[in-house]
């Protein structure tokens, strides 16, 4: 057993101390756990979470109608129709993204429980959110960042995020590529006794529920009805899960939850070579698919992010199309946002064309733009890494080889991922965790909820896999 494996064995013990959740008590059957119990036990009601967030200037962001982009969608739509596109301008949160919602509850909880500091393992906006919230609540903060390849060349976007965390006075631990970021992180938690503000904890996900709730509220107030669809940039699953739960809490029944990720197929997320061949460090399929089909792969034993349970549809879009949309948003709507957060907007542009003019499609986030975090530095960096950039048909894109900017808005499209394949893949991953070929009735119910498949379907699949229901 090497150093890495030794520490990983003590994962649950370290987690218990660092987040105060005894995950063992939620385990029910062979595979199942009491998800709603985990969510309930955070000990803050939805109303209290709204108050926690209001107190620190998080949430209540504007819902903006993108009239010019809607107009463009109608001009290029095959039917001439397109739904009205709205965006929830989450960049208005204190640190510039919806991640403040996620950080706010964890950091508040850390303060309440008397921790001296908080920590998070993230290369994204979440680091800045935790750092910012920690300052407001008077706590110290450490952020562990997967930042460089082995030659110490860093993604401009991640370098900017590290700068922002240091700008808030946090300690930033910058690492080379690899999943052992988690090793360093666990060691740090153990050394400092800080609170683990995990992206995947129930606190984090509960913090996003207000986003879905506000969307429903604002649509009803402004437009007198619920949106037909909410499009959500999907990576680790917390954004989809929290938003969908919020929509449900607001009482929406027909609103479709659509996840969207940048297609990075063929690039390995832990590869030292591929690391700098991609132009998106989040919101992509490299996180989106594994976290959907195996959600409990995060830095907590049981993830509160269960994207498959909440998603009605999952689409992918190319890097070039998202960059194109980032430029369109600035040029037509006067909003410099993203780029990564615009994955859902680029997708919504295509999806809106499937709907009627009087329908509403909501893009549920934007993020701040800055040096390193903009399409110019990302495209320049891509060129430096030998990626070809040209104007043409985005369908020709090959992640890691080229970036194709759509030569005409009518070429912007999404690719639907088969939900059935994703569900089957989830089940395959779940079955791998079984010690013997046997589950309990509670597992059947759990798997049915997790996959949105009927119990009958689950039982049939279990039978096919020679798994007994005891």
């Amino acid at each position, binding site marked *: 057993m*090497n*150093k*890495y494996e030794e520490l990983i064995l003590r994962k649950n013990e370290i987690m218990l101390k660092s987040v105060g959740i005894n995950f063992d008590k939620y385990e029910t059957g062979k595979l199942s756990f009491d998800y709603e119990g985990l969510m309930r036990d955070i000990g803050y009601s939805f109303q209290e979470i709204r108050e926690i967030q209001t107190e620190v200037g998080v949430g209540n962001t504007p819902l903006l109608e993108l009239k010019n982009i809607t107009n*463009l969608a109608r*001009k*290029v739509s095959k039917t001439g129709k397109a739904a009205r596109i709205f965006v929830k301008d989450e960049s208005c949160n204190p640190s510039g993204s919806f991640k403040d919602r996620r950080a706010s509850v964890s950091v508040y909880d850390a303060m309440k429980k008397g921790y001296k*500091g908080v920590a998070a393992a993230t290369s994204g906006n979440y680091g800045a959110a935790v750092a910012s919230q920690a300052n407001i609540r008077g706590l*110290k*903060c*450490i952020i562990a960042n997967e*930042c*460089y390849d*082995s030659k*110490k060349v860093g993604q*401009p976007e991640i*370098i*900017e995020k590290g*700068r922002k965390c*240091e700008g808030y*006075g*946090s*300690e*930033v*631990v*910058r*690492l*080379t*590529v*690899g*999943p*052992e970021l988690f*090793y*360093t992180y666990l060691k740090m938690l153990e*050394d*400092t006794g800080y609170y683990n503000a995990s992206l995947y904890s129930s606190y984090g996900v509960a913090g996003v529920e207000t986003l879905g709730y506000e969307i429903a509220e604002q649509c009803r107030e402004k437009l007198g009805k619920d949106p037909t669809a909410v499009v959500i940039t999907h990576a680790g699953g917390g954004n989809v899960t929290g938003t969908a739960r919020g929509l449900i809490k607001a009482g929406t029944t027909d609103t479709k939850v659509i996840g969207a990720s940048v297609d990075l197929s063929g690039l*390995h997320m*832990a*590869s*030292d*070579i591929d690391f700098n061949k991609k132009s998106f460090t989040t919101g992509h399929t490299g996180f989106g698919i594994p976290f959907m089909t195996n959600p409990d792969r995060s830095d907590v034993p049981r993830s509160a992010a269960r994207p498959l349970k909440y998603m009605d549809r999952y689409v992918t879009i190319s890097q070039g199309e998202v*960059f*194109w949309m980032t*430029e*369109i948003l*600035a*040029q*037509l709507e006067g909003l410099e946002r993203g780029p990564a957060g615009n994955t859902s907007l680029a997708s919504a542009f295509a999806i809106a064309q499937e709907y009627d003019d009087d329908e509403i499609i909501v893009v549920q986030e934007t993020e701040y733009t800055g*040096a*390193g975090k903009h*399409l*110019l*530095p990302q*495209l*320049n*960096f891509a060129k430096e890494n030998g990626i070809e*950039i040209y*104007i043409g048909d985005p369908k020709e894109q090959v992640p890691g080889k080229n970036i194709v*900017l759509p030569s*005409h*808005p009518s070429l912007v499209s999404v690719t639907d991922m088969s939900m059935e394949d994703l569900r089957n893949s989830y089940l395959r991953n779940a079955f791998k965790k079984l010690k013997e070929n046997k589950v309990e009735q509670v597992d059947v119910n759990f798997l049915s909820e997790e996959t949105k498949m009927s119990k009958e379907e689950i039982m049939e699949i279990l039978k096919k896999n020679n798994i007994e229901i005891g």
Partner: protein
Amino acid sequence: MIKKGTWVEIEEIVLTTEDRAKNIPEETKKTPLKCWIRGNCLSDCKIGDEVEVETNVGRISKGKVVDVEPGYYHSFGKYVGEIGYIGKQAREIISK
């Protein structure tokens, strides 16, 4: 000579190639997992020395000094000609 108290960046090898996780790509496994931490050095030192630093949160960390007063040099970069058409084309389409 770097004076005690100066803001520096240190490098540490967290996991050697033997200690890395098993399920990672070969090209990554061939390289050690490295980590860089910034803080005020606790003694006089020079580039390449092993030194202790105190970080922003007051944590003490030890490693090899690789940078003095590390800055932020990321930017928006050069003009990218390929995106010049995007706004113009879209404006033209919606004005019709």
